[in-house]
């Protein structure tokens, strides 16, 4: 597929604007050229929010998200491009794949938050999972209990006691995970409010950094706790 690069003249045009790959007329973020009606590739720079036609906000109504996803699936799905040129088929395939990834990412609150952190503050792949500071001691102890349970005889009195302790821990940790997810939701609301105010002063910047930092910390702790819960579920069933 041959994709013409914008010529020098179009540099003056806003960043979001580019040219139709087919008729070279200007397209401004729409997915279909106004002049030749050809499908336009979702640009690499387009974030998942834009891809689904949503503002970059963390609180998303699942019904709205789904409606947008269905609407755009109808626009991009390869099923509807069988009679079109090979170039259009290739664009439809890429667009549909990107759209599916965008939907999958934004549908899940945790993935959505990770994605936003990635957009705002760089790669989340570098986030190391870490235990919540207040749970550090407790988790060390839990690991010992787990080891003891795994090594010992499950039907013995000690085995039963260990199992009961692990079950209690599992309940506590699951509650903790739910709390963290609730807090994440509250941070979503705070983040969205800050964005809506659109202030750019020093205080707003500090607030922004604080929210991002806290989200990052929460995600890191939550993943840690979740891994332990999975471990527990696997061991005690």
């Amino acid at each position, binding site marked *: 597929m041959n994709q013409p690069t914008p010529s020098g003249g179009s540099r003056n045009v806003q960043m979001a604007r580019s040219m139709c790959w087919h008729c070279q007329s200007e397209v401004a973020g729409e997915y279909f050229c106004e002049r030749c009606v050809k499908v336009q590739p979702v640009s690499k720079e387009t974030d998942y929010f834009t891809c689904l036609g949503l503002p970059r906000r963390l609180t998303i109504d699942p019904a709205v998200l789904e409606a947008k996803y*269905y609407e755009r*699936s109808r626009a991009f*799905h*390869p*099923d*509807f491009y069988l009679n079109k040129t090979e170039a259009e088929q290739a664009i439809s395939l890429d667009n549909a*794949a990107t759209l599916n990834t965008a*939907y*999958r990412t934004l549908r899940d609150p945790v993935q959505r938050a990770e994605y936003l952190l990635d957009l705002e503050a760089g790669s989340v792949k570098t986030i190391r999972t870490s235990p919540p500071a207040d749970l550090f001691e407790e988790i060390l102890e839990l690991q010992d209990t787990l080891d003891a349970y795994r090594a010992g005889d499950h039907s013995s009195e000690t085995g039963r006691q260990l199992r009961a302790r692990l079950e209690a821990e599992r309940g506590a940790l699951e509650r903790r995970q739910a709390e963290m997810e609730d807090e994440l939701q509250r941070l979503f609301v705070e983040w969205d409010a800050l964005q809506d105010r659109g202030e750019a002063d020093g205080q707003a910047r500090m607030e922004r950094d604080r929210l991002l930092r806290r989200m990052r910390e929460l995600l890191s702790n939550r993943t840690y706790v979740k891994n332990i819960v999975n471990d527990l579920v696997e061991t005690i069933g």
Partner: protein
Amino acid sequence: MARIVGIDLGTTNSLVAYMDKGVPRVIPGADGRTMVPSVVAMTDHGLLVGDEAKDHLLRNPDRTVYSIKRFMGKGLADVQGELAYFPYTLTEQGGVIRIKLNGKTYSPPQISAMILKELKRRAEAYLEEEITRAVITVPAYFNDSQRQATKDAGLIAGLEVLRIINEPTAASLAYGLQEKTQGTIAVYDFGGGTFDISILKLKQGIFEVLATNGDTHLGGDDIDRRIANLLLDEIRSAHGLDLGPYPDHMQALRLEAERAKIRLSDELKTLLTVELPDGRGRFTRELTRDQLESLVADIIERTLAPCRSALKDAGLAPEQIDEVVLVGGSTRMPLVRRRVQELFGKQPHCHLNPDEVVALGAAVQADILSGGTTDMLLLDVTPLSLGIETMGGVMSCLIPRNTTIPANAKEMFTTYVDGQTGVDIHILQGERELAKDNRSLARFRLKVPPLPAGVPRIEVTFLIDANGILHVTAKDMRTGRQQSIEVKPSYGLSETEVERMIEESFKFAKEDVASRKLIEARLDAGSLLAATEKSLSEGGHLVPDDVRTAVRAALSALASAKEGDDVRTIRTRMAELEQAAKPLSVALMDDSLKRGLEGKKLSDVT
């Protein structure tokens, strides 16, 4: 736009359907039957497919292939456990099973292509137009190799496969079209050789698959085998006889087991009869439905774990499923219906013919692709996680199972040694931690410019298209140049091999057509000869001598042409005979008219 047909290429039976003014219909054969048994026989008189081939299961068991779908996209090691059940010889070449028949070897896609050609012919005869494009269904749980093998089969049969679509989702399209359903549905598809479960959400014409699961090696075949093994054991202990060395009796026993199973879906008990070899009489046994149910309970049980996994992946509890749809012949068993009803807590739907619903759905999808149906859209998922092998033989997942397709994942590769010129990549599909426990799909070598370690940056894109088939592309991020990749499939035919098979298939197609024309010409000549002989003996006395002589000469000329194998000579001699015999037929007609009028008054005639 040329018509697209929908094909259900099944383990036991195959069907072809089309969209007739917004209504999907299955195309019947000349005999009115809609199902073509997926059986291919290489007889001394040529290739037979379908019902005719099924007759040869007993007469030529070693040259008659059934259940070929079980071998699609597989290597010999995959089917080691069931080799004993198949009377023909299986070998392997290039990771692909080959079947030896009449001294020639065939790959499973070639055998499947023979079935597809039969369906193509059937559709062409019925619709009176050439058919070159099709949607073909596969089990939802088919992996990449099995899908690719199905696509290859289409190509070999002279069909452009516009879409590979999953059987349970196809069924949901047929149901959805009829009922305009909204909500969540579970499609339980238990066929001849495979089991699938798919959970879908239907909303405003969008059919979104939430999760799918299954077992591509579990079906009615396994139930038949269980019954057959019971009979074999009993024959062994009652008669001291092992039927193993008698392939035709083994087949007869297998077919009797299948028929008994089918009867027990309506009856509470049935009688099985097996003829024994060498004039040792027959073995009979009564089988009750209760006995059958306890005999195969564990097989039915094996379908329930995938159902639970699919529900879990969809994030739904059984009671959140609004409707359960049954697909596939094996769902006719009362035990299956009971188990499904217990699991989901509601009466399953089965008012569309479970044998036909998949083909009907394929026709609906064909209509969507041709632009006829515009309000429906199917969003399917990939059934298995896709990944690559990383250090230490671990699989690193790139696209998790139940991801909506098309789906893509990009991965950046670099080098660990200065001047390294290639990176070997091993693509896997499956849910296990270790690479060796998953299905190997393909391997390829990424070409890298010789540079210091860590400097090259090659981005590889793994794209699963709407057919569930993987495409790999690579791009050098430093130059921005696209790199072509030659992927070597682990269990598939190479492109050149497929091309050769397509060519062969066309060559055979010409031979097939030629031999069919010859057979027809001979038949026609035979009936013309007989009819003319009859006329000559009845009305020879009515015509002059020279006419009789000319007719006799033309008769013997045609008789000798009929012995030859030139279609045109036969047709020419036939025309000559008809010409020579014209005075004779005129005379005969006059004579019968005259005799009809004898004894009648003139007033009766006018």
